[in-house]
């Protein structure tokens, strides 16, 4: 039994067209926004790139995280479609590289008065000067390069070890235990980057005075739920192409449960942060939410909760809906949009203020990244059999009951 995937010309075309839209948007954006030498245009140009880039990167890293989590917990359920998170994880470096280019350009290329990262030059701001041991160009480069480098390494390593298992002797457990160790090591890296320093540096430092201890866990929750949605989209797509023959409703049900549970976990972190700041009512802290809840972002602020909480909890609650291909695919798209919106609200309001847009530029850049995702992941998927024949848990995945 073999299960090879060949990129259908339709998918390849879609990927190319989307990438092309991205490139055209980028050029058009550069002409429209950078030409006039106005701060609003400059901010819009870079924010569009940065928010979309980070969104896709974080979503992709979740694929490494779920491999590590399932590895440590000895999860057999994921094995039937294991190649999907492997392929996404192995391409983290592409998005990592793009994000590094964008971020470093923003740190170095926006002049003396950085309109997005105010801390680049504190200009006598006592608070920012106090933070400068952490928030400075050197630390930013160091932390960012280390994080992206490590994620890229682990993403590729998980896949290559999984492929190597195919040529190992039948029922050999050597590589299995090695993967478990690798998963442990990744968890440490993940805890020190994604669950702490990276979101502080890249996102929280946009509102450079403000701080919240929960911030990174909140970002992690959003990244993880959108990452599971992405895995689901790829899995159902491959299934529709006649691949992934071992995958059935039981496996889809699992992914549906993850989307349901972690949408609620995301809401939990959202609410914990919001409620405690509201209740404490300390002006230095509430200013963050005041900017978002009142004024031009008000509609998006409430929409965020509807899309990421009300929708998933009502629609994914029942068992039949998590086992229905249409419903889960629809909800995965909703969740990806919702988490994109959440990241929009975490990043834009600080630098953009009243001049916010979700228009051709923001959507075009999104399309570009989506195109890159389609092209890279589909190419990786063609490189090996989609059934991990020699995996210790493959047979468990066959008889798996959700």
């Amino acid at each position, binding site marked *: 039994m073999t299960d090879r995937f060949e990129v259908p010309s339709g998918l390849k075309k879609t990927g190319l067209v989307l990438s092309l839209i991205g490139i055209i948007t980028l050029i058009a954006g550069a002409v429209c926004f950078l030409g006039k030498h106005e701060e609003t245009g400059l901010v819009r140009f870079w924010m569009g790139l940065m928010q979309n880039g980070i969104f896709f990167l974080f979503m992709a890293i979740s694929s490494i995280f779920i491999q590590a989590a399932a590895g440590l917990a000895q999860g057999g359920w994921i094995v039937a479609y294991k190649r999907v998170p492997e392929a996404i994880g192995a391409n983290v470096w592409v998005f990592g590289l793009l994000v590094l280019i964008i971020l470093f350009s923003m740190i170095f290329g926006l002049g003396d008065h950085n309109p997005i990262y105010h801390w680049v030059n504190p200009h006598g701001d*006592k608070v920012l000067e106090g933070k400068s041991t952490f928030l400075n160009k050197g630390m930013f480069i160091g932390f960012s390069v280390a994080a992206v480098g490590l994620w890229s390494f682990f993403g590729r390593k998980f896949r290559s070890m999984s492929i190597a298992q195919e040529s190992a002797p039948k029922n050999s457990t050597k590589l299995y235990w090695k993967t478990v160790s690798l998963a442990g090591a990744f968890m440490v890296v993940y805890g020190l980057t994604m669950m*702490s320093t990276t979101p502080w540096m890249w996102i929280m430092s946009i509102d450079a005075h403000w701080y919240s*201890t929960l911030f990174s866990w909140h970002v992690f929750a959003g990244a993880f739920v959108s990452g599971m949605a992405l895995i689901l989209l790829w899995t159902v797509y491959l299934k529709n192409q006649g691949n992934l023959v071992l995958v059935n409703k039981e496996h889809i049900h699992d992914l549906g449960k993850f989307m349901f549970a972690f949408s609620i976990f995301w809401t939990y*972190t959202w609410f*914990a942060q919001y409620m*405690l700041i509201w209740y404490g009512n300390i002006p230095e802290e509430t200013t963050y939410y005041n900017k978002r809840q009142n004024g031009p972002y008000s509609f998006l602020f409430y929409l965020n909760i509807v899309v990421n909480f009300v929708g998933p909890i009502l629609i994914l609650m029942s068992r039949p809906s998590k086992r229905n291909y249409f419903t889960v695919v629809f909800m995965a798209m909703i969740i990806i949009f919702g988490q994109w919106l959440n990241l929009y609200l975490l990043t834009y309001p600080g630098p953009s203020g009243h001049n916010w847009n979700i228009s051709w530029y923001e959507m075009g850049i999104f399309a570009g990244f989506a195109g890159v995702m389609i092209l890279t992941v589909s190419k990786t998927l063609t490189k090996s059999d989609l*059934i991990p024949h020699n995996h210790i848990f493959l047979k468990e995945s*066959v008889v798996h009951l959700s």
Partner: protein
Amino acid sequence: MHLKYESFIREPLVDGNKTYKDVTADICRPIEQKPSKLWYFGLVVSLLFLGFGAFSVFWEVYWGIGVWGINHTIGWGWDITNFVWWVGIGHAGTLISAILLLFRQHWRTGVNRAAEAMTIFAVMCAGQFPIFHMGRVWDAMYVLPLPNTRGPLWPNFNSALLWDVFAISTYFTVSLLFWYSGLIPDFATIRDRAKTKLRKRLYGLASFGWTGTAKNWQRFEALSLVLAGLSTPLVLSVHTIVSFDFATSVIPGWHATIFPPYFVAGAIFSGFAMVNTLLILVRKIYHLEEYITMGHIEAMNKVIVLTGSIVGIAYLTELFMAWYSQVVYEQEAFKWRVLGPYWWSYWAMMTCNVVSPQFFWFKKLRRNIVFSFILSIVVNIGMWFERFVIIATTLYRDYIPSNWSYYSPTWPELGFYLGTFGLFFTCFLLFSKYFPVIAIAEIKFVLKTTGDKAHEDNLALEEKSLEEFIHIAEHAH
């Protein structure tokens, strides 16, 4: 029928080539035998502790809260520390029974019954502290929002302390229901094996006339799932709301948004440690090593290293943010925690909670009984210090230096705490004598998948190719 198969790499969860009959006999044995001398000794010691606790509480109620060491600056001391500590311990049971049920983790079957019992007893202990902290304990009913003749006098619904009353009483109720409904078929088993009339009568009453029909089982399973669904948010909400007791304030060191998830992780951490402490003893004393295997203990040790590390990230995040905030009060609060006169409690917390669980990265240590036992106690010492650090060592440096204070407990506070240990172990010893400490029905349910015999039978399946295996699975009956 579904093919019962499990990968050879998983270790069996029931050893000793058990049949259904063996399972019943082994688990019922402690109930049907006369208790050992050790059991009586344990019960007497526990009752002595309980008695001392009752006396300490009597002393406090009679003379008033002034007999405790708490003072104007440090208004919460050992009492609230112990309260949070016990509530935290009370998390593991329902987590194991509800969340691990939803996650289809078979290893929960060996430990869930004792863990749930532990939860209930721990919550009972926890509840004592806020009640007797009230001082005028006869006014305790004022926390309940009952229609009353007090005119417009209602509890303050804006207060996190009131949310606690609701959260914990709901949690207690649902945990109790969950635990008891699981016990029903097992009570019926004991009833059917009973040799005396009284025994038959009492266990018959306790089992609600369970007859084991298909309809009985169907309703039982439906109820389990409903209760699991209800308990899952409760596991998370209880400690979340306990964390609100602190985090809704504006006190530096308490007002932190990370508190809710970090409290939940800490609670699971301490709860699993306590489950390990108890089960390592239970399996030894009642000879249940074949049901509570090394694999079970290792699984719990893995949860301990995971949650310990999550808590570690939270500690470091708090510390970092205190500096990063550039708010002088935040910075001072943490400086006094780490380097002030109570420095030893901060470092005890760090060592026990963050450093010590890291040993469980090593398989050898995770599977070492003595080490696991010692570490499970170390973790709970650490978690006690965590609450002490959060409570006393945050309050003791007030905004005004003239309010600065120091606090040591007096004997009634100490006695109260020891008394809850007495209560806890009295309940647990009675439970382990009269109730099946392992869920008989649930072990039987997984025996044909995870028993060592089932694993041997499965070895033949491992040799089959994928196609053959799919064929077998499709035609399994």
